[in-house]
């Protein structure tokens, strides 16, 4: 394996370091794990220091880092200042990456379930035994139920493409990612309006509205950083959120919008922009389809009407619409990321997209810009075709316009439980944790109980791994070689990234690429994995001659793509070749061609709508057990407004029960004015079933236990803000 770029310390720096008495003093208790894992160099010799590039994997953002390695131990992860997307930063999670690497709770060798599912009884296997077992089970299911009888699900990871490749050559169309529990609705809406999912040029914007996005806590690079810089340069930030998030706290304006009514707000904004002729007429005439219909359509949605729905004063809606128009085209209705919230999330985001179109901000500074062309080659392969396979995915046709390569976790799960349209009896998961993130955990367990075989590859014993039959240990991002990958950075430009091991893999952990290659060989599919990662990467980079050297020298290869005026006179990738304010395709597929407002479910008197969301210290279910991060955020609580709390006799810190029609959880109450009276909030990642997550087991409650599983009717994306709950003092 090619060694990571090494930069041995100069003699001079080495000597300087010797003068520092403080350097290298480690605490006995803290470094126990490290001592157990690496051979210690004897005596008082100065440590051998190396600095190695990598890319963070504590969330999906992939920020650039330089690991400081002393005597083979990763001591510190420093930001890579040359990395444009992260602009030379790491967040709390990024800094805590060493504790993922040296986590005593990590999976260490293959484990086979012995007791009942979820009982936590395991038998250690050798890799050969584990791989033979996996291959045997996959073959048996394929033979008995067709190859589509195995469902594959891979999270956001540089090696996930190999899970997709494996699924395809094995012969299953049933492939899911984390996306149908996350951002599909935004993608659908912006793709269907503009023909491509754009990136917001926050850095150069003069006016940003964030609705249902919390960029100062749910960090996205470079947007979170750029928002601060833009604000220092005079950009105005308006936040619509039922919670007083940190984004709301730092915004110029915060409007505690009634949850689920964002479309009313933006239709009214469109109404004002259209009726007061504030839109970019040239742009709209040249580039949009359906303006006449839109003009008619939004007439029914004046701000005075919207005020009744979203509880934001009409005068503010009118003012904000005018301010947006003045700032345009350097003005953005922020597209957002996680949009798995309502049954009409795609249509809600369509209303965001349409207002952006009226502002004429497409392809212009401070507006919505196009992803850059990266130019990586994708080594092709000729997957076999299995004639006995069913024609389609198991969730096919269950949403109006599902992405055929993404599918829907919720709808697939329903199909597995029902055994229709055909039985699915195997599940392969890699680095995704639907037991924590997929609403209605009871149903996920029901689904798992339908399976003959479940295989999970992960770094730690997640709740999903806890339910599996076979658990295989993967190395952390600091221990493995990865393929190259294109990374979009909006106004920071696109770049190419990759990873090489910063330190060798610990324990018996093996990358998923190796695991799949080994299983493929056992299933006579070896020819599709007949290469090393190094060879694969070389092929990927064949048309980028300067990339390999830049990756070696700087840890990143910047594309320096043109940011503005990229669309030029080229047609939009839509049916009409224009921005579709009105979508014939939606009409044809049974969806509203323009977003039609439908009020959200009413919240009964004695109940609350529950909303979920991240903060800057957790990445859903994957980082809460981190021994550093759990010192900042040791458990979740339920946010409840003081007025209803008083009625219910709930005080700060009381143990309460949050219950929905599908489940309940016990956790502490956080009584705060920072949420609406009709809305309660919980962070994800707690209430774990896995006793192997020792830092957080027994703490807080799990959102997936409480949330009902509604879905976005257009994409099948999970709708996680549609659940009404009761909150009561817990009976001891």
């Amino acid at each position, binding site marked *: 394996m090619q060694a990571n770029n090494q930069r041995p310390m100069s003699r001079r*720096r080495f000597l*300087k*370091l010797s*003068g*520092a008495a*403080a*350097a290298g*003093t*480690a*605490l*006995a*208790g*803290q*470094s126990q794990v490290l001592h157990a894992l690496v051979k210690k160099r004897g005596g008082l010799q100065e440590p051998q220091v190396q600095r190695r590039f990598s890319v963070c994997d504590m969330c999906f953002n992939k920020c650039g880092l330089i690991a400081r390695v002393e005597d083979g131990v990763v*001591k*510190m*992860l*420093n*930001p890579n200042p040359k990395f444009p997307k*992260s*602009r*030379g*930063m*790491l*967040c*709390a*999670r*990024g*800094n*805590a990456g*060493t*504790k993922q690497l040296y986590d005593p709770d990590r999976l260490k060798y293959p484990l086979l379930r012995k007791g009942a599912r979820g009982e936590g009884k395991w038998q250690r296997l050798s890799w050969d035994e584990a791989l033979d077992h996996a291959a045997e089970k996959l073959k048996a299911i394929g033979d008995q139920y067709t190859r589509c009888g195995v469902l594959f699900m891979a999270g956001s990871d540089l090696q996930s493409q190999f899970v997709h490749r494996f699924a395809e050559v094995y012969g299953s169309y049933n492939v899911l990612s984390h996306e149908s529990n996350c951002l599909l609705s935004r993608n659908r809406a912006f793709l269907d309006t503009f023909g491509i999912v754009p990136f917001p040029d926050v850095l150069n914007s003069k006016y940003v509205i964030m609705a249902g996005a919390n960029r*100062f*806590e749910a*960090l996205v*690079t470079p947007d*979170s*950083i750029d928002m*601060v*810089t833009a604000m*220092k340069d005079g950009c105005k930030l308006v936040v619509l959120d039922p919670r*007083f998030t*940190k*984004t709301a*706290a*730092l*915004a*110029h304006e915060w409007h505690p919008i009634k949850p689920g009514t964002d479309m009313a707000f933006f239709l009214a904004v469109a109404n004002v922009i259209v009726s007061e002729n504030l839109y970019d007429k040239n742009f709209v005439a040249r580039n949009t389809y359906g303006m006449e219909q839109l003009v008619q359509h939004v007439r029914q949605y004046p701000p005075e009407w919207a005020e009744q729905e979203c509880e934001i004063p009409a005068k503010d809606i009118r003012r904000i619409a005018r301010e947006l128009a003045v700032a345009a085209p350097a003005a953005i209705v922020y597209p957002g990321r996680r949009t798995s919230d309502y049954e009409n999330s795609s249509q809600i985001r369509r209303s965001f997209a349409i207002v952006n179109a009226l502002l004429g901000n497409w392809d212009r500074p401070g507006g919505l810009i196009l992803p850059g062309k990266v130019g990586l080659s994708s080594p092709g392969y000729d997957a076999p075709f299995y004639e006995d396979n069913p024609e389609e995915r198991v969730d096919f046709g269950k949403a109006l316009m599902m992405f055929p390569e993404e599918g829907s976790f919720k709808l697939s799960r329903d199909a597995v439980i029902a055994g229709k349209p055909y039985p699915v009896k195997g599940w392969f998961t890699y680095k995704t944790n639907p037991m924590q993130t997929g609403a209605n955990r009871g149903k996920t367990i029901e689904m798992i109980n339908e399976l003959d075989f479940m295989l999970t590859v992960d770094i730690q014993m997640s709740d999903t791994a806890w339910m599996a039959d076979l658990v295989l240990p993967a190395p952390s991002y600091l221990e493995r070689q990865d393929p190259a990958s294109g990374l979009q950075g909006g106004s920071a430009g696109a770049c190419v990234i990759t990873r090489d091991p910063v330190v060798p893999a610990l324990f018996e952990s093996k990358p998923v690429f190796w695991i799949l290659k080994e299983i493929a060989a056992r299933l006579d599919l070896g020819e599709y994995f007949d290469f090393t990662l190094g060879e694969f990467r070389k092929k990927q980079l064949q048309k980028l001659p300067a990339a390999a050297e830049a990756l070696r020298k700087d840890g990143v290869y910047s594309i320096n793509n043109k940011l503005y005026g990229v669309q030029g006179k080229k047609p939009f990738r839509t049916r009409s070749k224009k921005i579709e304010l009105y979508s014939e395709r939606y009409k044809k597929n049974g969806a509203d061609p323009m977003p039609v407002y439908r009020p959200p479910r009413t919240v009964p008197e004695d109940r609350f709508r529950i909303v979920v969301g991240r903060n*800057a*210290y957790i990445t859903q279910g994957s980082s809460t057990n981190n*021994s*550093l*991060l759990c*010192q*900042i955020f040791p458990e979740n609580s339920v946010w409840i407004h003081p007025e209803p709390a008083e009625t219910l006799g709930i005080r700060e810190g009381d143990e309460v029960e949050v219950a929905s029609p599908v489940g309940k959880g016990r956790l502490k109450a956080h009584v705060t*004015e*920072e949420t609406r009276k009709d809305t309660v909030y919980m962070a994800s990642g707690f209430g774990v079933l896995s006793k192997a997550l020792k830092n957080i087991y027994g703490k807080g409650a799990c959102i997936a236990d409480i949330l009902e599983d509604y879905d976005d009717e257009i994409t099948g994306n999970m709708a996680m803000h549609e659940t009404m709950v009761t909150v009561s003092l817990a009976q001891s």
Partner: protein
Amino acid sequence: MNQTGKKKYAMVIDTSKCYDCKACMIACKVENNVPNDFWRNWVKHTGRISGMRTQFQPGGCMQCDAPSCVEACPVGATYKGKDGLVEINPSRCIGCGNCVTACPYDARYLDPLKHIADKCDFCWHRLLRGEEPACVATCPTKARVFGDLNDPRSRVSELAEREKLVRVVCPSINTEPNIYYFAGTEPLNWPVVPTLPGNVHMPPGFWKYSG
């Protein structure tokens, strides 16, 4: 190693850039191997829903020019040392804890394993390597700026020249801290009145702000 004369290290913080991501806190813990549940730096904030914009305010040991911790140390283990830093000599420290309660910023702690006082030293070992303190290097928005106030070309001197800077001091005592904040970003009046042990002799003028 200092050819240009004496250094005076300081930090200038633009609190309007901080969104409380706590990257600085974790970076510090990793870089300095700070024991569990202890911190060498922090992010304070103003009251939340008040109609006013919330301010998040990062901080740490202020490396004061008139440090009450130094006065409170009975054995001279903590002292105003090189380049403006308040230092601790681990071999002299007896772990009495006087300095911990003497700090108006609550910046010190007793290390439960080493049984001595500890605190931020602006990542002295990183400075020796020519690197910035970990909290400064990792900050997403570069709200923390670090440098030598005696060097007129440093960023901190530049900011001191250009911006109206303020220091956060407790009402009863001004220890002349070396972390500066941009004016208009509402630093909080949170420092506590230090409590000093009765058997420690305090020089006249220590309580210069006390009424």
